[in-house]
């Protein structure tokens, strides 16, 4: 299952909620959720922990737009919109944690 997160986990609980119920699968960070993919925030340690059980992807155009493309946490997979499409196609289903 692909989980799509679009809110900054630094100020919103949707990534936490997703991780609470999700044991495995893939997470894609888009829109303001991409801040979680940048090094140096208070969430970085947690992201490393999370990467142990779920695979994390980030929509690069959104990270670039926010000036953080050079701070991508190692181990988070960058994708473009085409990659976003591929992820949806490859998963049985997807859920947007709005």
């Amino acid at each position, binding site marked *: *299952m692909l989980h799509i997160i679009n809110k900054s986990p630094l100020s919103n609980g949707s990534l936490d909620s997703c991780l*609470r*119920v999700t*044991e495995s*699968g893939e997470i894609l960070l888009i829109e303001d959720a991409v801040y979680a993919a940048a090094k140096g925030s208070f969430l970085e340690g947690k992201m490393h922990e999370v990467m142990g059980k779920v695979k994390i992807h980030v929509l690069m155009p959104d990270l670039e737009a926010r000036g953080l493309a050079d701070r991508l946490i190692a181990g988070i997979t960058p994708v473009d919109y085409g990659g976003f499409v591929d992820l949806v196609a490859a998963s049985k*289903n997807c*859920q947007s*944690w709005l």
Partner: protein
Amino acid sequence: MSEIKKFMFVNRKAPYGTIYALESLEVVLITAAFDQDVSLAFLDDGVYQLKKGQQTKGIDTKNFSPTFRALDGYDIEKLYVEKESLALRGLSEADLLVDVTVLDRKEMGKLMGQQDVVLSF
């Protein structure tokens, strides 16, 4: 209709503060007419949609919570509430205005994974 799909409506937003909960319920009622396998999941602030005793006169807004009790007549009987979301809000099953199945977080995640279509608003 060729096949029956598993539809899940994931409700994570509180009522009244925004319109999402109300308009989500409107989709659920329509979906009932399509003979699909429909379930509703309530997580996070979405559990507040089911709180008993909502009184909306003072905010001049329609109280749509009684509509959840009509779902049974629409043959929508699968209502799931995540246990942790309830507990975090100091609520229990007795506070809810309809019969639901309470699932723990892992069971909820598993159920989501089994769906064909997940709609969240």
